[in-house]
Each structure stands twice: as structure tokens, then as C-alpha cells.
């Protein structure tokens, strides 16, 4: 009896892992092809775009840049100056000091000659109370608004910024990000270009700034980071942005816009109730909720993506910080999928329900679990002697080389499209990284992902019951109160 059950379990698992591996390969190959097509089209379209026009055109949409800051006293002044110097006509910068414990607010007041005002703040989206809205007495800084508020987390700070904002488009960015001077003009193109459907959001690429030279808010000399973890993230960002998101854009299935650099239609963000502060994956959750709103109201829409290098950030190079980040990302993914379980395989939600959601659920959320199960399965097979050396070696070689191939493509994409890492030494370092990544870094990522699952089960950080129950409609977030 036991023998029969064991054999059935072994066979089922074997077929499952084989099918899973096959699906991953098919998906990634499709991603490679779709992203190549999208990149080709993007580069061709770029030849005909005169971005200078946007700066002064009355037809260009106005932008509110919202930058939440928490304990950023060392860099906040320089970062705000950098934001104020962006090349664009109609924009404002809203810096939200999210209850920093350092002297961020004093430094801002001092450097920008800020004065507390009687700003008529209206809490359209509920958020933690604000302590004050500051404007500068110096007309050179008329585009700057600083909001001081009680600490409530990034999403809460962004919601306050959205409440304050007055413009058509909101740009949610991390204050420590380095933005290229033409970042706003380039990000506006998808909003302005579309004719038959509304562009509800546009995402951009985040580059790795570690070890690079930065001058006047732009990376002038690219170098790969010194550490293995840093270099791995360079490749990972190529894979994620230049391949993954480009491919999803091609089929209008993009569900994630990075919280560090995302542009959204303000009116729609207001309609769906802004960011959901009870999840750690607020960036993905907002995009999904906006898309749901459009699908539920049968409105044609698109989520755009610009692969040009316009924004850079310092990535964590210590294992401790990176593990926390990955744990948070995994919890964010689980929470978002949980909140929007209604769209799962639901044809009413189009490509998002039928393709994007299942992809995220199977290949992102469940990946660490399936991988660890695969390892246990393999060990069990070795112990019982039921393993076939042919399968084992064949699959091992297959997956290893496949991983290398995908990473190599992402580097090649970057080389073909932008060629930022010009030094052959840098390229060699990147190639070495992709060779060892599957053995050295990937297991750690899976482990951190598993811990993310475990923390989600324990209910860490999230809003347990609400998240498990999920939103019935896109606008349900507005009913959520503290």
C-alpha cells in the first residue's frame, strides 16, 4: 500500500516538475522574443521623437513629482535640488517627510527658505495626519512643496503627496534616485502618443548606480559594482526591465511598475483610492487595482514602459539588506495576488486575468516553494535509488544552460540597445557572475523568498484578514479604514 502511494506520488511529482520546467522555458523564450520585438520598435520610434517640444508645449501634461523621504537628512537637500532642475515645463515637486527622526525637515527649511503655510489640505485619500505644508519664500523654489507628516510608511506618504498634488500626472519616485534631466519628457511620450486607449501608467527602468560616476544628476560613467551581489543585481535588473517588462508591455500585460520610478494618471489613482498602505507591495498593488478599474468599467487602456536608462539607484550590496528587500518583495507579491484573487483566470480581466496573474502566481510567488520541493524530491529519489542519472544530468544541464542563456541575452540586449557598460573588463565580470549565479546567489534568493512566504503566513507586516479576503472591486480600497 505504502509502496503504491509512494510510487504514485513520485510519478506525479516527476511529471509536475517536468511540466513546470518546460513551462518556464517556454515562457522565458517567449519573453525573449517579445521583448526583442518591443525593444526594436521602441528604438525605431525613438528616432522620430523630438523631446525638446514637450518641454515648452502647452499640450504636454503637467506632472507632480512625489518623493517620500524617511531619515534622508544627509542627501535630501541635494536630491531635491536635482529634482527641481529637471528639464520640463509644467511640474511641481512634492517632498513628503514621513515622520523622519533625523533633522531632514530642518535641513529642508534652512536650504530652501521654507515657511509653514496655511495650505488647505484635503484628505481625499485617507492617510496619517500632516504636521505642516511648507513653501519657499524664494520664487526660484516655487515648484517645491514640502509636507511634514506623521510616520506611516511609504504608501501612506505617497497618498499624502497625491492629496496635495494638482497636476494631471503623478510621478512617484524614491527621493534617493538619480533622474536623468530628460526623464520627464521621455516618460510623457506614451501618455501623449496613444490615440485609441488611455495610458493609465508608465514605468521606467531602474539602473544600478553603485560604483558609477554621477555628474549633474546623470550617470556619466558606468562601472559594474565591486561586489558579487551588486553585479548580480545589474544582471537581474537587465533581465527584469529590458526583458520581462518589455515583453509584458508588448502584450499589455504589465502588472508591476517599480515604486522607485513610476508615472500614473492622477484622476484614476484618485478614483481607485490611491496606494494601499497595508501591503508591502504597494507599487504592484496600485497598478493591478488601476487595471482592474479599467477592465471592470470596460475602458480601453494601456500600461506603458520606457526602457531608456533614465533613473538610477544604489542597490543593497550586503546580504542582510538584500534578504530583507527580497523578503518584502515576496510578501508584496503574495499580498497583491491575494488581494486581487478575483481576477485569477477570470476572462473578464483579459490578459491580466488569464496570463499575467497566473504567471505571477506560478512563476514568481510559488517559485521558491516549487524549487525547494524539487530539491527534496531529488534527494528523496537519490536515497531510494529511483533516480535516473539520465534525467538528472539532462535536466540539470538544461536548466543551468538555460539560465545562462537568458542572462546572456539580457546583457546582449543592453549592449545592443544602449551599450552603457563599454569596458570589456566589466563585461567579463558580468559574464562570470552569470556563470556562478545559479549556484551561489539563486539558492539564497529562493531561501529569502521562502522566508517571505513564512513571514506572510505568520502575518508579518500585512493586514491579515483584509488581504486574505481580497478586494471584490477595484474601488473597494476606498472603503478600507484604519
Amino acid at each position, binding site marked *: 500500500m505504502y509502496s503504491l502511494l509512494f510510487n504514485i506520488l513520485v510519478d506525479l511529482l516527476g511529471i509536475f516538475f517536468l511540466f513546470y520546467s518546460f513551462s518556464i522555458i517556454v515562457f522565458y523564450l517567449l519573453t525573449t522574443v517579445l521583448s526583442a520585438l518591443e525593444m526594436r520598435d521602441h528604438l525605431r520610434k525613438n528616432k522620430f521623437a523630438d523631446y525638446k517640444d514637450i518641454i515648452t508645449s502647452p499640450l504636454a501634461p503637467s506632472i507632480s513629482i512625489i518623493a517620500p523621504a524617511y531619515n534622508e537628512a544627509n542627501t535630501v537637500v541635494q536630491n531635491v535640488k536635482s529634482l527641481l532642475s529637471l528639464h520640463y515645463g509644467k511640474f511641481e515637486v512634492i517632498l513628503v517627510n514621513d515622520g523622519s527622526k533625523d533633522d531632514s525637515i530642518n535641513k529642508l527649511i534652512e536650504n530652501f527658505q521654507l*515657511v509653514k503655510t496655511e495650505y488647505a489640505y484635503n484628505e481625499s485619500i485617507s492617510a496619517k495626519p500632516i504636521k505642516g505644508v511648507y513653501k519657499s519664500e524664494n520664487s526660484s523654489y516655487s515648484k517645491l512643496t514640502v509636507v511634514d507628516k506623521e510616520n506611516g510608511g511609504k504608501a501612506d506618504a505617497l497618498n499624502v503627496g497625491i492629496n496635495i498634488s494638482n497636476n494631471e500626472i503623478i510621478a512617484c519616485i524614491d527621493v534617493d534616485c538619480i533622474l536623468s534631466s530628460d526623464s520627464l519628457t521621455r516618460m510623457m511620450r506614451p501618455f501623449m*502618443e496613444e490615440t485609441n486607449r488611455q495610458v493609465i501608467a508608465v514605468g521606467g527602468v531602474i539602473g544600478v548606480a553603485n560604483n558609477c560616476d554621477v555628474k549633474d544628476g546623470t550617470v556619466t560613467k558606468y562601472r559594474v559594482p565591486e561586489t558579487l551581489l551588486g553585479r548580480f543585481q545589474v544582471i537581474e535588473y537587465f533581465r527584469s526591465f529590458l526583458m520581462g517588462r518589455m515583453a509584458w508591455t508588448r502584450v499589455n500585460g504589465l502588472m508591476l511598475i517599480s515604486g522607485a520610478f513610476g508615472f500614473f494618471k492622477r484622476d484614476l489613482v484618485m478614483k481607485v483610492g490611491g496606494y494601499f498602505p497595508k501591503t508591502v507591495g504597494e507599487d504592484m498593488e496600485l497598478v493591478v487595482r488601476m487595471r482592474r478599474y479599467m477592465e471592470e468599467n470596460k475602458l480601453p487602456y494601456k500600461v506603458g514602459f520606457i526602457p531608456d536608462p533614465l533613473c538610477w539607484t544604489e542597490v543593497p550590496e550586503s546580504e542582510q539588506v538584500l534578504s530583507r528587500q527580497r523578503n518584502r518583495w515576496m510578501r508584496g507579491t503574495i499580498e497583491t495576488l491575494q488581494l486581487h484573487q478575483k481576477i485569477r483566470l477570470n476572462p473578464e480581466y483579459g490578459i491580466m486575468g488569464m496570463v499575467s496573474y497566473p504567471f505571477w502566481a506560478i512563476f514568481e510567488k510559488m517559485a521558491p516553494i516549487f524549487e525547494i520541493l524539487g530539491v527534496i524530491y531529488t534527494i528523496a529519489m537519490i536515497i531510494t535509488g529511483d533516480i535516473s542519472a539520465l*534525467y538528472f544530468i*539532462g*535536466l540539470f544541464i538544461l536548466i543551468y544552460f538555460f539560465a545562462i542563456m537568458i542572462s546572456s541575452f539580457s546583457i546582449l540586449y543592453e549592449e*545592443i540597445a544602449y551599450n552603457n557598460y563599454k569596458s570589456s573588463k566589466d563585461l567579463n565580470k558580468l559574464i562570470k557572475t552569470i556563470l556562478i549565479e545559479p549556484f551561489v546567489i539563486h539558492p539564497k534568493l529562493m531561501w529569502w523568498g521562502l522566508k517571505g512566504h513564512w513571514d506572510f503566513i505568520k502575518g508579518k507586516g500585512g493586514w491579515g484578514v483584509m488581504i486574505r479576503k481580497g478586494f471584490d472591486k477595484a474601488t473597494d480600497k476606498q472603503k478600507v479604514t484604519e
Partner: protein
Amino acid sequence: MKKGYLRKFLFLIFLFSFFNISFIKGQNDSLSVEKIEEILTFEPSIQGLYYQLEVKTPKSQLGQIDFEEMNFSKSGDFLLSDTLVSYGKALEIKSLLETKYNLDPFLKYFIFDMVSDRESVNAYLSNLIRNEIFIPGIQITQEEMEGELIILGSKVPFKPFYKLRIKLLQDIKVILLLAILILFIFSSVILVLTMIFIKARKKEKEILTKRFKDLTYEPLSNLLFEKSLEEIMEYSKQDLEQFLPTNYLSKPLFKTVLIQEIISLNKNMKGDFKLKLKLIYRKLDLHQFTLSRLQSKRWDEVATGIVEINEMDLTEALPEMEKLVSNKNFYIRSNAVATQLNLSNDKNLTVLARQKYPLSSWQQMKYLRIIKFLSTQNLVKIIYLLESDNVSVRIFGIRLVRYLGRVDRIAKLSEMYPTASLPEKVEILRSFNALNAESELNHVHDALYSDQEELCLIAIQTLGNIGDENSQAFLIQRLGMIQSFALEKAILTSLATLNKDVFLNFVSTSTKASYMKIKDHLLDPILSNV
């Protein structure tokens, strides 16, 4: 805490369940000695197992027993039986010798050619049964027995029972694995080759482009700064070619680079220099190259051709542009319309008015730049745009009224307003606001009471600019009808702009918290001045 331990415990049980199952399976497979004895006795033969009886007889008995009949042969002091395949038969003979002849025969066991003991025989048989090589009760023919796996080490060479080819074709998992491997190798090879090819081609093109740029720089400078317009006019194509590197003009990439350089210089120069550049362009027959681009199947090639036509004022290409203004490709269409607007000198803007596709903001931005330039030379006729069937063209027309300051079209906008769509109404009100159209207050007052918040908001803002005393009353009346903070703020802002005393008087008599908040905001010197 206890819950945590319980989860860990359950996880460990799950983890070890694999090992437990295999352990149980192993126990289940071992056979008892009694069972083995039974199988050996009743099976006529078992592959690889042989038996022999060895008898040591006293000389006195040698003549009494017919050993040859029993197939015994002499070996020294011993008599050995034939090799027997049946354990049962061996036991039978052994019993006969013991009972009838009172001898003490010794039963020898062989596993293949090797002499073994009973324990090894038991282990061997257990292995055969566990691995399903031997199934009790089922006889295997001699042919099938050939090529059997040798488990305990034998001098017989290994020959697998299942041929690899048969195994591969019968196992679905192996087929799948092979399919994936083939797909993977095939796809990756194609993708890698494509990428390498593209990169190599791109790099080569970059090097050549840079080289060609360097090669065109000097000849163009010489022609522009050392030769007069008249001199260039007198030059033939051959004369001009002498300024350029020999034989390069036949290369398409060189032509492309040369055109780009000419266009780039044309954008940055004025007067005679522009004329010289256009003359050089034509005399070198580069315009033919540009026109040939329009026949390309690649949309970006066609669009590049259109841009070049626009920049170099190739008016003879206008009929071609006419065909392309309704192209389904956004970039071809946009550039063709822009070129048509620029080169046709059509003050009626008919190419725009006839557009079937909706105009995006991007296109409008592009056309606005051209139309602004045209309107400095001639008064463009926006009326056709305002009467277009295409709503996005009409909206662009309304915006043009505002951007070009066409006060003469206010009456037309007023006429359009009652039947206009919501986006058109919003744009019309914005135009009234921008052009200070005080005569249109009736429409603005109507819009103030609209259910559409967007329209109402624009109306409020417009009233702040062009409203009269009646407007103040309407604004205060409307304030009492709304709950939206954004509208309240807009109304009080407009009221304060229209008449500060009325505003102050109104807010001083009101106790509503939101009004107080807005009042403080509007009276804050920093917020109102910076």
C-alpha cells in the same frame, strides 16, 4: 510560540515522510527463509541458480550402486552429479541417496559459475524477486534468460534486458526531456546567432557612420564657406562629386550619413547657407535616394524618408504625402501630415480637417509648432478644423483658437458649444478663459451648474477670470449645492479673485470648517505670492 513549534513539527513530518515511505517499502520487500525454501523447492528452475551433489563413498559400496545411471561422474575420491537446475530434483536425489544407499551427500550451490553458500542463494533470490527479475510461478524461456542482468558479479558480460533505444521511445518523460532539450538548443542557437548578427551589424554600422561623418565634414564645410551660391548653382553633379571621396556616393549608408549631415546643418543655419545645402542635396541626386525610401516595406524607412522630404522641402513629393496621410502606421501618418502642412502652404489646413484617425496629444504638439510658424506668415483657417467630423480634430481646432489667440473664432466656439461633447465643452471654456471672452458668460454660467465635475471646475476657474456681479451670486449659490472640497476651493478662489470684499464677507459669515481652511489658504501671503 506553541503554534510556531507545531508548524515546524508538521513541516519536519512532511519532509521526512519521503524517507519513511522508502524505509517501509524496503522492509516490505525482504523475504523469509521459509518462503525462499518454498520457492526454491517448487520452481523447476531459477535463472542463474544451479545445484550439484557431492558424494564420498566407501570402496565397498562402489559396485552396488549404478552411479552412471544416476549421471554421477568420478572426481578423485568423490562422485559428482550433473549440474542440476531444479532444487526440488536435487533434494529428491539427495533423499534417495540418504535413504536407499545410506550415504551422506553434500548439496553444493552455484550462482552462475561460482560456488556459493545457502545464505548467498537466499540473498540472490531475494534480489531477483525484489527487482522483479524473477517472478515466482512464471517461467522464463531460455531465450529470455539470455542477456539477464548479473547482480552479484559474474564473468558473463553485462547485457541490458531493455535496449536503450526502446527505453527512450517508451518513456514519455524521456521523450519530453528530449523535446525540451531540442527546443532549447534550437531556440537558443537561433536567438544567439540573431543577437550576434545584429550586434555585429550594428557595430559595423556605427564605425562606418562615424567614418563617413568625418569624410563629409570637410567637403561640406568647403562648399558652404568657400563657394558662393552662384558657384554651386553652376556646378554639375560630377563637379560636386569631386569634393567628396571617390566612389563613396554609391554606398547607401554614405548617402544616409550625408543627408543627415546636410539636414543637421540646415536646421542650424540661415539664409544663403540653407539654400546652398538644399542645392547640394538636389545636385547630388540625394532627393532621389530620399524618395526611394518611400517604397520601403519598413515603416521606419518610410518615416525617415518623409522627415527628409519635410526638412529639405521636396515639394514634388507632396502627391506621395497625400497617399500617406491616412496610413495606418502612426509614425508614417504623423510625419506625412506634418510634411503636408509644412510644404503645401495650405492655409485651410485641409489635410488635418480630413484626418480620419484620432489625433493624439503628441501629434497635436507637433502640428501646433508648424501651424504657429505658418500663422506668422498667413492667417490660417481654423474653421475647417472646427467643422471636421473627427472629434479629436475639432478639439485641436478649439485649442488652436486659444493657442493662436484667435479672438475672431470666439463666436464660432459659442455656436458650437450647445451641441459639443464634454471634452469639446471643456476646451471651449478654457479658450473663453484664455481669450477673456466676457461675451460668452451665459455658456460659462450654464456650465457652472453642470453635473460633470470637470466642466464645472473649468467654468468656476473661467468665472474667476471673466465673471461679473451675477457670476459672484451664481458662485455663492453653487457653493451651497456642492460637497466636493476641490470645487469649494475653486469657487472661493474665483470669488476672491472676482471680488475680495464679497469673498471676505461671505467667509466671515460662514462657519463651515472647510471654508475656513480655504480662506486661510487664500489669505496666506506665501501661497498667494510665490
